[in-house]
């Protein structure tokens, strides 16, 4: 998350109103389905609930199976993949995308951190989901199809602030996942030419 992403939910009257609405939701409707972070590494940035929301977002942003909300026309290029044998993409939890996000976000300035935490709370808010046309459940308690529809509604929202929020989550999830060498084989990337560089450097010594 960029240090420049401040005022995330304060820039518009709509954003302020949404925050008020989120705060007015009864606690019972706000309950986040919790996940256990990997043992041995205490959270630096996220609360347990925020960690769980991020992990759930990462699961869908990086999902391998489509649902109705993410189905696209089967493009000609995509068809080329059929028959290609590649190792399956690792799951976001295998890469520990949420744990990496926790470490990456830890140095965030206070005001940015506050904005991001508000964003996550709003994203997992059952009432907010309901008033924007989704199920009256937190994101973390939706099934996969509902979660994809929820993400899609943020991605394409008329409210610029929701689109910004979607991009913040998508980009960081993607960056942390696809920069991990464990994912390289699944995208057909052989990795950097380490041996070539090493041999050239040695020949210069």
């Amino acid at each position: 998350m960029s240090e420049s992403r401040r005022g995330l939910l304060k820039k518009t009257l709509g954003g302020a109103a949404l925050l008020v609405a989120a705060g007015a939701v009864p606690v019972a409707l706000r309950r986040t389905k919790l996940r256990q972070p990997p043992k041995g590494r205490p959270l630096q940035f996220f609360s347990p609930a925020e960690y769980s929301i991020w992990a759930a977002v990462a699961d869908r942003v990086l999902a391998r199976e489509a649902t109705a909300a993410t189905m696209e026309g089967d493009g000609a290029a995509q068809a080329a993949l059929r028959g290609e044998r590649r190792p399956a993409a690792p799951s976001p939890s295998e890469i520990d995308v949420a744990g990496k996000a926790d470490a990456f976000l830890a140095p965030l300035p206070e005001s940015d951190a506050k904005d991001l935490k508000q964003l996550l709370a709003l994203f997992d808010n059952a009432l907010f989901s309901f008033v924007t046309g989704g199920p009256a459940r937190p994101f973390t308690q939706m099934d996969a199809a509902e979660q994809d529809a929820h993400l899609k509604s943020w991605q394409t929202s008329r409210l610029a602030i929701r689109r910004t929020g979607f991009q913040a989550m998508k980009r960081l999830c993607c960056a942390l996942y696809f920069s991990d060498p464990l994912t390289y084989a699944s995208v057909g990337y052989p990795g950097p030419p380490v041996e070539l560089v090493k041999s050239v450097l040695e020949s210069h010594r």
Partner: protein
Amino acid sequence: MIRTGSDSDLVLKPDVCIVGSGPGGAMVAARLARAGAKVVVLEEGGYHRKDEFDMQEATAFPLLYQDRGNRATADLSISVLQGRAVGGGTVVNWTTSYRTPDDVLGYWRDHFGLALTPPDLRPHFEEVEQRLGIQKVDLEDTNANNRAIYDGCTKMGWQVDTTKRNVRGCLRTGYCGMGCPVDAKQTATLTYLPDAVAAGADVYANCRVSRIEWSGRRATAAIGHLLYNEIETGRHVRVEPRALVVSGGALNSPALLLRSGIAGGGVGKYTWLHPVVAMGAFYKDRIEGFYGAPQSVASHHFAHRPEGAGFFIEAAPVHPMLSSIAMPGFGAPLQTRMGLLPNVCATIALMIDGFDPSEKGGTVSLRPDGGPRLDYPFTDRAYECFRAGMKAIARLHLANGAREIVSFHGTPLHITSESEVAAIDSAPLGPNLFAAFTAHQMGGCRMGADPARSVVSPQLRHHDFDNLFVVDGSVFPTSLGVNPMESIYGLASWASEHVRAAIS
């Protein structure tokens, strides 16, 4: 020498203090140190060398880019790739080197009262090209990513050519953007900064300048902190030079002036980005755009368009992290597209912004923590240009036999024939409805003859100060229509004489 820390506060009184060590700062440091001035360079980023460049995006972006690779406009609608290290953007750029186009200098003369002419700058560019080993790429040395663009443009009958690059002994690994692992790229860290140091200059890495102290018409001190692992160490910096040169780049320089209460002439206004739209062309055969010189072909066929803003077309490297951020959608479609990474040709269209009186560009202001906040509202002129750029990219790849061209709209277009190109005109554009980038930040402290409309004079001296200069891409009154590195070097070389005059 280049220092990375200090056990005590830093209190110095050199002839010249330069804030920032990118192409502008490095050049001024080399020129003035060689002329006998005592020069101190303060750089916020770290001093990183080839042994640290492991060609992994997870290493390079947090280490070498502003905001750990996550800099963006305030609404996240434009991702900002901007270097942060000793050597500045030269450490991470893709080596494309162009002189400032003659028609751009002409526009500046006509609209901003600048006297700069091509003959004025020619000897400076010639020296820079010699020092940096800038040479034109042989077509045979382009990778398939760039070659597809070249061939597609040729088939369309459009102007296209190979670029010039600042490399010596390049292995064409493809990792210019992550720091060259074999020192083939002739960065400022390997050229003008060592030149400056050899002539007696001192470069301090990990040194954040928070503000400029000033009195009357004189900048009296640069005030800051030393950093260790990005955290302030408690060691203070106070440098009191006879002349102060701000070379922090197009976002950090205006922010420093604003933090110092120096806002006259429109500091932070008229920031230009060469805003980029991209498309992915999927080919049957492997392209492997992650290897090979990342940017070796460009088409300026559409640089001058009567119907709107011009644009130029180039390639972008195809590494997994950056590609995943750019590629549209999420979930299974994104994973599928990523699975085709070896077959994708990444092509970008860069809008040439700033040449229409209606354009205001972006604005740099201050975040609560004092860092630069960038806003760049999209306009109808920009949207028209983006659509024209996407259509051109689609057409050149259709001509070259791509199976499918995928747009980077939130809900992407899949284009397989000319009849589908028109869909680009009706696809929604708006902040965060499509992917937009910038790797060329310019303006924000524009130069000009009129103090009411510009921050620095045609000699790059601040209008309100006798010893304060801005020497970097922030002084450009418009964008350039070409990659900016060589223009910054050339302008800085030319401006060094004016800085020297201020301490004579």
